[in-house]
């Protein structure tokens, strides 16, 4: 976007000046297109650890039940299965097993995936979701 915009602002006065002096304006080079969407970097557990701390850490810890259940071992675990944590009925009855796919859907919108859940936090950035999932997989010993 920035490159395209700058090129346009630079190109317009040049073309106008060429026309004003009776010089046939050479066809403008095609404006560079916006950067093609780069493929997302592969998921990174180390980045995921940072995102986890910043965005999940208010409610969750790896080894303690807090506002949310502890997360170590979550990968491959059935939803609502941490002992001594009080889950919503909706999550307990969901039948979900946590893996890349289910965690990705869950983190996009828990209330859409399991209406009645107590978790409303949405992690909307796809890269952050992938990184957090990689981290949760790592701390669950599922490399």
């Amino acid at each position, binding site marked *: 976007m920035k490159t395209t915009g700058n090129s346009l602002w630079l190109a317009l006065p040049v073309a106008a000046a060429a026309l004003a002096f009776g010089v046939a304006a050479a066809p403008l080079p095609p404006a560079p297109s916006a950067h093609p969407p780069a493929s997302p970097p592969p998921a990174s557990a180390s980045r995921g650890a940072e995102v986890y701390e910043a*965005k999940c*850490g*208010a409610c969750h*810890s790896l080894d303690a039940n807090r506002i949310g259940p502890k997360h170590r071992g979550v990968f491959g675990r059935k939803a609502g299965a941490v002992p001594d944590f009080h889950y919503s009925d909706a999550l307990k009855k969901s039948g979900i097993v946590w893996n890349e796919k289910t965690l990705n859907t869950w983190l996009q919108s*828990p209330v859409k995936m399991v*209406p009645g*859940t107590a978790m*409303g*936090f949405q*992690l909307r950035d796809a890269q952050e979701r992938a990184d957090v999932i990689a981290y949760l997989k790592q701390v669950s010993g599922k490399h």
Partner: protein
Amino acid sequence: MIEDIGPKSRRSLLIGSATTLSVAGLGVVLGSAALPRAARAATGNAAQDVQLLNAALGLEHEGIAAYQLGAESKLLKPEVLKVAVTFQSHHKQHRDDLVAAINKLGGKPVTAKALTDYAKELNAASLKSQADVLRLALKLEKGATNAYLGVIPSLDQPDLYLFAARTAADESFHAAVLGNVLGEPIPEKAPMFG
């Protein structure tokens, strides 16, 4: 109230000044057209909002407890303790607002755990200095800011959007002050939260 989570002591003097939001005040917070109880409680969306507000209430209970643990640690210098107590009073206000909102929606607010439970969950035994206490508070405040922002798209009641955003702003203010006291560098990139 802090007394809900531990024995009464000097801390009730320290932290007993939180104001309580009246029901009329809640109307201002949440909007006067919000929440006719019977109508709202009858819908699944109201029940969903109650669930989410209760999670936020759990967060506030924990935040109040964290500042309580810090206040009782004897690790804080007097001027820092004063700030911590003020921040705790803000969390008490958030708690009271959430309790009022949950009641209005026909829900049952979650109660606080014992202070000893929070101490264990937050690993309070590892706090050995003022900086340790402030780092814990900073982590929780940053997390709470993100938590409130991240829940907004899941809320059904539009008046709750403002409530959550306003509370997030309070938490981010706390985080900024704590980060400054700890000498943390100013984040180079924006947005810093959400």
